């Protein structure tokens, strides 16, 4: 991460990171260390040879340090973020270099084309002709080495390593053209008059086109990683920290755990933490996709990279550096962008044998024209072989999948959808059924007590007291609702003697030597508790979508509690969107059938599975998969981990800043189910884009290579000019990248 010069000048006792571009050997390390240690005030010096950085601690202004390093013969600068801004600079430099080469090669090529076409030079058979064509040959050699040198070096190196790539094809194609043409210039009489033709213009124009294509492709490729650049850009560079009673601006890397940080209105929050003073509204949309600013009060979590909209507040740093949610998100997106889904494997297999295969096709083309072609065979052999070598484009094939994945994963991140596993993108594009966990996924997950029905011998207050006293020992979300209700009604809780959870059914406790049961109908029936009129009441509540808990004391029914969990406002709309994508939506819940049916009806799911114990959720997924469905499971990622892991794609929903949920393939930072629809829509679009690219790239190569070989010649007399082949090749990979970039405008 970067540091600002002024912030480093005025701080004492802090460390400074410098970048020394020309550290090239271990010896340099000693020289720089010695030079820096001799500067008064420097306490410690650490030189990192690997990333060429130097960390200096001590009370010395940064410009003095840079001077000291330059006196020892090296060039130092303040270290910027090395993997990003530096890469960008290098990419830009490379792009400019390619453009420069294109322009120079282009001018010379056009000059060569002009003299060739217009017949400005004397006959090649005359001495004057040989001299002038000799000069042309040298000019072409200059273009080949200056603008195309890297192809020749690359071809040679990979050849030595028993490898062949794009460079091999370009180098052989243009190299053969130049060598043959130069041979004609030196020994014109060795070639029959009809074949006495030179191809300097062809060779140089091909190199020009390929350079131009590479430059444009690089530009377009840069855009594919915009999403991650945007995320990196969210990170502020400095933080205002309380130190010894006053507020000081320090570089973000120097923020320590538990530091108290001040954030003023309009500023970005530098690291993650917990609000300790003041309150505000915070815009977290860049991170979570949540459009509405979130209200924050003391005790709430704030996230680095989000923007403080209204009040000024203080917070305590709880996660810094690589541990912040933003850093983890960046890392996760970067990793997912590099992943390769299954669909790309075939292209990879083809790529790995592509170039040698093209070389073989080139030799076969040459032989075919030699044996069966018209006169002058030599000319035809040369033109077709060159065209085959130049037109074949393994790049388009190799790029087809990864470039779309880059854009697709980035697009998903914009919507608060984080893809953790490479294959998840392809899998979610092929999903046929989405299973939604009810609590916390369709509903808010914050249940409240909405009905309290004691039997005749009990009072509301006593019923709530005994229920809450027992439930205060439980961690179940429903238990929290009961305890919360007792707090609201100021009911005093009593201590209980023993407590035991009956998984999936309820709890059993002992209170004043009486056995208390709290749970569902099954628990009561199994224990022989007669429910009487409570049953009717419970059915009524269930139909309203409430979950019912019965309470019994020493085998006698004491009453029931109705608990409802409000449905998220946009659940219904999001479920409709999923159905519009052609996906069946199933709700999974531990609630009884009546409650489940009501909620299912309210949100409009296609089907529901009720009364499922937590440990059986995964089995339900397996059952659906056995029916041939591709199943996505959506849950909170905590108590449904096995189901998430067992599904084809597991979505953890509403994780907020807790992005690293291991069991999920995709984490949704927003609580809304719209995230699931967004994720599936983006995956489908990405998959479609990959298919377009693959079909395009496979189609291009399997059509273009035979045409270049001259397959149309016997029927139409058509032969492909190698110059056109060069242009087509440059265009093909550019088209793939441009098509992937179209995804950037996709709106799920």
């Amino acid at each position: 991460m970067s540091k600002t010069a002024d912030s480093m000048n005025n701080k004492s006792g802090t460390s400074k990171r410098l970048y020394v571009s020309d550290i090239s050997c271990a010896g340099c390390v000693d020289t720089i260390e010695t030079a820096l240690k001799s500067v008064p005030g420097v306490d410690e010096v650490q030189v990192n040879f690997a990333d060429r950085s130097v960390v200096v601690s001590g009370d010395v202004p940064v410009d003095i340090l840079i001077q000291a390093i330059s006196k020892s013969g090296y060039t130092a600068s303040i270290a910027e973020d090395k993997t990003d801004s530096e890469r960008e600079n290098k990419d830009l430099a490379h792009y400019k270099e390619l453009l420069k080469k294109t322009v120079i090669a282009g001018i010379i090529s056009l000059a060569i084309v002009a003299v060739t076409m217009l017949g400005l030079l004397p006959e090649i058979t005359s001495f004057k002709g040989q001299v002038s064509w000799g000069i042309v040959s040298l000019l072409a050699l200059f273009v080949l080495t200056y603008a195309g040198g890297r192809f020749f070096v690359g071809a040679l190196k990979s050849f030595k390593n028993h490898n062949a790539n794009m460079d091999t094809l370009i180098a052989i194609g243009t190299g053969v053209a130049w060598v043959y043409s130069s041979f004609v210039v030196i020994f014109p009489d060795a070639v029959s008059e009809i074949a006495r033709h030179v191809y300097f213009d062809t060779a140089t124009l091909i190199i020009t086109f390929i350079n131009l294509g590479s430059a444009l492709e690089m530009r377009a490729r840069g855009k594919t990683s915009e999403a991650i650049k945007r995320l990196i850009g969210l990170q502020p560079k400095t933080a205002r920290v309380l130190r010894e009673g006053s507020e000081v601006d320090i570089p973000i890397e120097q923020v320590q755990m538990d530091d108290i940080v001040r954030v003023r209105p309009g500023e970005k929050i530098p690291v993650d933490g917990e609000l300790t003073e003041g309150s505000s509204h915070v815009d977290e949309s860049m991170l979570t996709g949540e459009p509405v600013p979130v209200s924050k009060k003391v005790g709430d979590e704030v996230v680095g990279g989000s923007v403080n909209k209204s009040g000024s507040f203080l917070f305590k740093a709880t996660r810094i550096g690589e541990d912040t949610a933003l850093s983890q998100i960046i890392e996760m997106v970067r990793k997912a962008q590099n992943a390769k889904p299954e669909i790309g494997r075939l292209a990879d297999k083809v790529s790995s044998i592509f170039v040698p295969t093209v070389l073989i096709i080139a030799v076969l083309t040459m032989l075919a024209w030699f044996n069966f072609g018209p006169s002058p065979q030599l000319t035809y052999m040369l033109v077709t072989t060159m065209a085959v070598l130049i037109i074949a484009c393994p790049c388009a094939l190799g790029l087809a999948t990864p470039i779309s994945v880059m854009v697709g994963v980035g697009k998903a991140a914009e919507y608060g959808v984080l893809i953790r596993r490479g294959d998840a993108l392809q899998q979610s594009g092929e999903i046929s059924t989405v299973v939604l966990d009810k609590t916390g996924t369709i509903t808010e997950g914050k249940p409240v007590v909405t009905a309290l029905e004691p039997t005749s011998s009990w009072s509301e207050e006593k019923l709530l007291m005994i229920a809450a006293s027992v439930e205060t020992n439980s961690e179940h979300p429903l238990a929290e609702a009961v305890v919360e209700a007792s707090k609201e009604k100021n009911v005093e809780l009593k201590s209980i003697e023993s407590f035991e959870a009956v998984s999936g059914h309820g709890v059993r406790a002992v209170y004043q030597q009486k056995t208390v049961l709290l749970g569902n109908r099954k628990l009561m029936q199994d224990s022989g508790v007669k429910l009487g009129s409570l049953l009717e009441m419970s059915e009524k509540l269930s139909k309203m979508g409430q979950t019912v808990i019965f309470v019994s004391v020493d085998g006698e029914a004491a009453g029931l509690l109705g608990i409802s969990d409000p449905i998220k406002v946009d659940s219904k709309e999001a479920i409709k969107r999923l159905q519009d994508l052609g996906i069946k939506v199933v709700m999974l819940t531990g609630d009884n059938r009546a409650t489940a049916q009501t909620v299912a009806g309210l949100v409009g799911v296609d089907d529901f599975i009720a009364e499922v114990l937590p440990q059986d959720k995964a089995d339900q997924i397996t059952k659906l998969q056995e029916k041939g469905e591709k199943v996505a499971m959506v849950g909170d990622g905590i108590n449904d981990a096995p189901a998430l892991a067992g599904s084809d794609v597991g979505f953890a929903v509403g994780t907020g800043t807790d992005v690293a949920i291991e069991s999920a393939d995709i984490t949704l930072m927003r609580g809304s189910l719209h995230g699931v629809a967004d994720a599936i829509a983006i995956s489908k679009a990405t998959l479609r884009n990959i298919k377009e690219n693959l079909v395009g790239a496979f189609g291009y190569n399997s059509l273009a290579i035979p045409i270049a070989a001259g397959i149309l010649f016997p029927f139409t007399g058509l032969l492909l000019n190698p110059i056109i082949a060069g242009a087509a090749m440059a265009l093909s990979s550019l088209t793939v990248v441009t098509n992937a970039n179209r995804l950037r405008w996709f709106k799920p």
Partner: protein
Amino acid sequence: MEIIINLTGLVLIAFIVWWFWIFKNRSEARVEGSVLDIVVDSGIYEPSVIHAKAGESVTLRFIRKDSNPCAEKVLFSGLDISADLVVGTPYDLTFTPEKKGEYEFTCQMAMYRGKLIVE
């Protein structure tokens, strides 16, 4: 003349098949203790075949010299590991291969190719 040219062509094809597909003598190296440097330049990884021991941490230091954008990523698809490389800035990739086997590492387009053999 005709026979010679045809024969030359066939020999050339045989040579291509042998050189690129059959012949296997790439530059090999073994990770011993510390860091192994892998130079990424002119379309190849040098060394391109790396031996490592299962369950032991390895650090592969990728040194990218090639400014061609193809060289900017290295992916170990079987291991779900990847790295973004910057020209001139060595990148240390540290991980522990748990399972024995052969893992290919490639650039994004699978033109740069190497192999990690876990023994």
